[in-house]
């Protein structure tokens, strides 16, 4: 009888603890922490951009500087431009020129220029830079030096508050990683959306990948709903899933991710959702 009560108690406690961990809704209120985050998000985006560019451009120093100040434009795919008139259309038998590729070189130079003005250069053989969001916050803090920044002020309080700061760090780093992966997939043209398929806008595909510390794929990427790929009548899903598999493979290695936070990005789930693109 006594054992039964103890087992019951342990069961209840463990289930509640599991619930607290697994269900975000039951987590303790972290409102004061979350209030800081929106400010940080802006910086994270910038930081990720800088990091990606530094890495890409460092091995080959660019000789000429272009005076372009134009901000890199997003490539807009939809809606389609008005069709060409008959007189300007190439005939099927004519050798049609492939679509002009975006001026990659110019774009790279442009990015280098931006980098040079915004962040110090790093040589490839220097120690890998550790991503430290608190240092970053300090760097981007434009207030007077005498005024302690928010993180220092929080640090001064007590140990418990310092623990919250580490939570902020993890959240910031997670956001940085998410942002960097997203940007990497878009900038490298990795994901070709299956356009024109019936119901393509509803074909969200989730893929799980495992990465080595140097950003290479370990094993084959796994489609979360993999069974659906081989089901009859699900050819559109298979097409969408294959476009996703091609995307994650084409984009490998993900060696721009900070090695110090390997535990955070070793296992990733990437959701590819074409709805935004197809519905504008």
């Amino acid at each position, binding site marked *: 009888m006594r054992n039964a009560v103890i087992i019951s108690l*342990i069961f209840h406690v463990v289930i509640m603890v599991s619930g607290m961990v697994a269900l975000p809704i039951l987590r303790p209120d972290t409102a004061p922490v979350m209030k800081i985050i929106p400010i940080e998000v802006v910086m994270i985006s910038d930081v990720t951009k800088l990091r990606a560019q530094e890495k890409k451009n460092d091995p080959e120093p660019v000789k000429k500087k272009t005076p372009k100040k134009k901000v890199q434009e997003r490539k807009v795919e939809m809606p389609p431009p008005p069709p060409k008139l008959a007189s300007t259309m190439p005939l099927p038998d004519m050798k049609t020129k492939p679509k002009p590729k975006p001026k990659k070189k110019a774009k790279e130079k442009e990015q280098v220029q931006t980098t040079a003005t915004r962040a110090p250069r790093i040589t490839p053989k220097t120690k890998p830079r550790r991503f430290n969001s608190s240092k970053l916050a300090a760097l981007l803090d434009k207030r007077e030096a005498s005024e302690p920044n928010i993180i220092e002020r929080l640090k001064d309080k007590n140990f418990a508050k310092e623990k919250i700061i580490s939570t902020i760090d993890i959240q910031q780093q997670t956001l940085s990683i998410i942002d960097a992966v997203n940007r990497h997939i878009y900038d490298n043209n990795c994901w070709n959306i299956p356009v024109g398929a019936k119901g393509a806008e509803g074909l969200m595909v989730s893929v799980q990948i495992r990465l080595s510390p140097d950003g290479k794929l370990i094993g084959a990427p796994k489609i979360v709903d993999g069974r659906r790929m081989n089901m009859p009548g699900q*050819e559109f899903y298979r097409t969408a899933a294959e476009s996703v598999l091609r995307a994650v493979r084409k984009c490998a290695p993900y060696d721009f991710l900070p090695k110090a936070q390997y535990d*955070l990005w070793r296992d990733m789930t990437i959701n590819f959702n074409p709805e935004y693109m197809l519905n504008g």
Partner: protein
Amino acid sequence: MRFLKIVMLALVGLALTLFTANARIVVDVNRGHADPLPVAIADLIGSENDIVSGGSVRDYGQRIALVVKADLTRSGLFRVVDNAAFIKSGNALTTLRNPNFNNWKAIGAQVLMNGAISLQEDGRLKVEFRLWDVLGSSQMTGLRYFTSPKNWRRIAHLISDSIYKRLTGESGYFDTRVVYISESGVATARVKRLAIMDQDGHNHVFLTSGKNLVLTPRFSPTAQEITYLSYHGDNPRVYLYNIDSGKQEILGDFPGMTFAPRFSPDGNKVIMSQAYKGNSDIYVMELRTRQIQRLTKHTAIDTSPSYSPDSRYVTFNSDRGGSQQIYVMDSNGKNIKRISFGKGRYSTPVWSPRGDLIAFTRQYRGKFYIGVMRPDGSGERLLSESYLDEGPTWAPNGRVIMFFRQQPYDKQGRGGETQLWTVDLTGYNERQMITPLDASDPAWSPLIR
């Protein structure tokens, strides 16, 4: 007590697992590109020493690869990697079954087709191909065909259809034909003949002599029959034409003029307009029994009927609301609803074989457009625009539309040429079909079986 410890440890383990699962980073990607997929099409490997009529087996291998390339490029969904970029390495046969994926990856190909062609003892050609996922280093599909050398074009189209289906999830449309009205002569004495060709313009044949005026040809879903309107003497009549036998017959004898015929999806009925005593309504005829049923009864002009692929609905155009607009009704003529509400006039609605869209011609401010909308009238998109675009017809997979376009006349009365064009659902990929003479009123066949 020991049991208790084990239970506790197991539960703590469960909790930790839950926590770990929760910690996995989730990235949401909702931006991508709509570029054509880079595909490498290698020539089919064949012997130079085996000669059949029209060239060596190796020549046939190269010709088939060329047709496949042209098909895939024309679809707009694929970019064929230039052969000049190919990195040749190793023995041809090992490459066939075990391609060096790194070489293909290096030239930017994401999908590879390779294959072989050989001559059989009975004089037929054996054509086989494999489709490879270059990035995933795996085979996607592989097929083998046996055919007489004269059918090499069809084999090429069948290969294109297999590749298209494997990569898009949808049936292809390359092994299809197009029937259309070939036009020649001056505007006052125009000769109009029924003509048929492959969807890429090859194997062109005239079906009628041009003595009688022919209009609005439509393919039967069985692919062997065409229905069209012809003036025999002064009387316009709907005819049936069997492509294989060349046999032609009048479809019923109606008191008034019949026009705008179209087959039902099962090929057993023909739906059309009949003008009687100055009023046009929609009728449907059962081909076996020749029984006629009237579907609309209105003083307005109801015409251009087209069935939905499940045969449950019919779309047509009518001026019953004051201007020409598109309507949808049940296939028994009930529940008539107007679905087009834009400015200008809408006509020639055609239901997509996929069922999700209706193609139409829209006329607005002196321009003609080919567009699509959902069967409830929502999501209207205009895909082409010109001085005169008309007569849309769907490819059997519902992804490409063919129509005809007329050039404007200049002040000296020159111009006015008509050509066939195709446009895909994105509106990006608009291409002209090459025909020997002027062309109008195209009708796309279903896949040839």
